[in-house]
């Protein structure tokens, strides 16, 4: 076991998968000699050389499009998009090709690639370095979407993503890249995609969240004296509705927390599923504490935009009072 940050846990997962499987290669902007702008690929270029850790031209569509080709040829590319705000040019390749190759060829061609993307706000970054666009890709059929909230989960989920036979977008919440450390086994291990984690158990209310917001939820829960069950979805597609259902049937109340804008945020889907599955168990309407339906403000105001423990605590109390 080692006490690792999320960055270090991901770095370790990458090293182990590259050692285990020579089909695995990393490509992207500044991932080589520089070790990535967040140092996630630190040391990999030195260790595996420039055949397997490749600095590409500055072109996100190129990075993903070429990765699709590499994957269809039987390799296991791990492209990095430097910030979520730069996914735009890659959208076409992700949604028009990676997502639909298996079905349009009826399984003759598959795209086993894992796209790594730092995501979210809270680090005083410039514009387009702080967004939360995960819903766009959850909504796109054919893509698996993962967002860990802890070093342990990050390592196990990333290894699963790399070994998955289909395209996975692996969002890394940059706010917690180095925010805390956690014991992470040095041996390789996998965590199943599509399984949530019950962060803490409770019977008064369920909170569903993912990514860096999980930390804000914990702060809110620790502040109040209520018995709250916190579910970290970890994988956003496919998502663990069974875990949410079991919890909400137990507690009767649910608050969903995410950094992305409220409207059509993934919370909307969860709330609708709870309506479908738990209607008669509900004691109060499902609530969403989310980013506002605005462009993420520049960093002077970013903390006013992002759900924090205060907003979550208020939603908890008001939902309990309903």
């Amino acid at each position, binding site marked *: 076991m080692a006490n690792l940050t999320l960055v270090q846990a991901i770095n370790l997962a990458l090293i182990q998968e590259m050692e285990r499987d020579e089909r695995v290669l990393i490509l992207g902007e500044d991932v080589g000699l520089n070790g990535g702008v967040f140092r996630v690929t630190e040391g990999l270029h030195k260790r595996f050389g420039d055949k397997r850790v490749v600095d590409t031209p500055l072109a996100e569509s190129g990075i993903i499009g070429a990765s699709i080709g590499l994957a269809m040829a039987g390799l296991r590319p791990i492209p990095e998009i430097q910030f979520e705000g730069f996914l735009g040019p890659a959208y076409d390749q992700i949604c028009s090709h990676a997502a639909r190759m298996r079905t349009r060829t009826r399984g003759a061609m598959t795209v086993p690639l894992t796209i790594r993307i730092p995501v979210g706000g809270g680090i005083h970054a410039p514009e387009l370095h702080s967004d939360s666009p995960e819903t766009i890709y959850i909504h796109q059929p054919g893509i698996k979407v993962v967002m860990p909230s802890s070093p342990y989960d990050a390592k196990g989920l990333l290894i699963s993503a790399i070994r998955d036979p289909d395209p996975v977008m692996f969002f890394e919440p940059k706010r917690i890249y180095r925010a805390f450390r956690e014991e992470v086994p040095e041996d390789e291990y996998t965590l199943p995609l599509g399984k949530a984690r019950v962060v803490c158990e409770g019977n008064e209310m369920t909170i569903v969240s993912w990514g860096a917001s999980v930390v804000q939820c914990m702060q809110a829960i620790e502040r109040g004296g209520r018995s709250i069950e916190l579910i970290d979805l970890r994988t956003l597609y496919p998502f663990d509705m069974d875990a949410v259902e079991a919890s909400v049937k137990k507690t009767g109340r649910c608050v969903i927390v995410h950094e992305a804008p*409220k409207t059509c945020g993934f919370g909307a889907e969860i709330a609708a599923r709870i309506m479908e599955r738990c209607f008669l168990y509900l004691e109060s309407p499902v609530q969403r504490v989310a980013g506002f339906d605005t462009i993420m403000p520049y960093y002077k105001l970013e903390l006013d935009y992002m759900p924090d423990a205060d*907003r979550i605590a208020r939603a908890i109390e008001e939902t309990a009072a309903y």
Partner: protein
Amino acid sequence: MPIKSAFTTTIDHVSILDVNANFDEKLGAGLIPDADLVRLYEHMCVCRHLDEVAFKLQRSGRMGTFPQNMGQEATSMGAAYALDKTDWLVPCYRENAGLFWRGLPMEMILLHWMGDERGNAIPRELYCMPLAIPIGTQMLHATGLAWASKYRGEKRLACTFFGDGATSEGDFHEAMNFAANLDIPVIFFCQNNFWAISVPGKIQCSAPTVAQRAVAYGMDTIQCDGNDIFAVVYCVRKAASLAREKGRPFFIEAVTYRLGDHTTADDARRYRDQAEVDAWKTRDPILRIRKFLTTRGLWDDAKEAALAERAQRDVSSAVERAESIAPPNRDDFFNNMFATIPPDLALQRDTMQTHGIGQDPSQIEGAVIELPAKTSH
């Protein structure tokens, strides 16, 4: 049949004031009047000082990430000088010198990097677009801006700036193709500074010149020493006259160098040799103008000392203006989303809540809510 040549071309390189301040009289005479050159020099020095101050502001936590412009001042400065004041400047984010020359107050650039959108509220009459953060996207806007001039029968052209890395992006190629095929008067100004963060230019372009890319689009092009303000002015004037007279686009590759890190979040020592940086320091665009002005009797130590004092004064008052601005109102990020705010968004703004009960507490009327102690960020 013998194989014939289908097409051949050459790429001209322009250098007028070289590293040692040797001056090509034939090309350079009358290009920049002495008084203007003094002003340009002073301006570049102020811009350089701003760079140094901004770096310290970031390091002391008074500003967020900042991309230094050091070493590239002659490019955008020369372009802004050579163009009309009503030509569009469509920057990337390393064109402070040109934007300041046009009249953009320094505190606006500082505000932008201090995480404040008010830094982008550029007065319309300056004809400057806000900084473009996603690489290689703004050249299409320049194409549209210039297209609008053509549409209206105006002579206003657009000059867009970008680095060598940006020429790898698809949007760059689309902009070039649009402008060339639809006859749109855009100047594509590539600041080839050899580094896209840590990735060297050879990963972006295998051809000996970036300028060659224009040839493929049937666009006129030229390469110049980007650290030579005379060469920059020469090329931009040539481009501007073609754009204005023939309505054609033009591509300039200005060979320069990013003397600093990519931004304050970067550490270039990780990926490039100090010897390379040191070699480029001798080619600093500011040094050679000073040498040139000095040999012509237009500059001396006393003037240099006075300039240093002025630079300090100008930059510290810009910093003061940027730092003394009232904190932004959080309503602003709601109110500026649309011309008219939709009711649902207004509700979010007025309650600062997204959860339904928070937006409509009448749902729990009569309930006593005890909130746990607040935290402040």
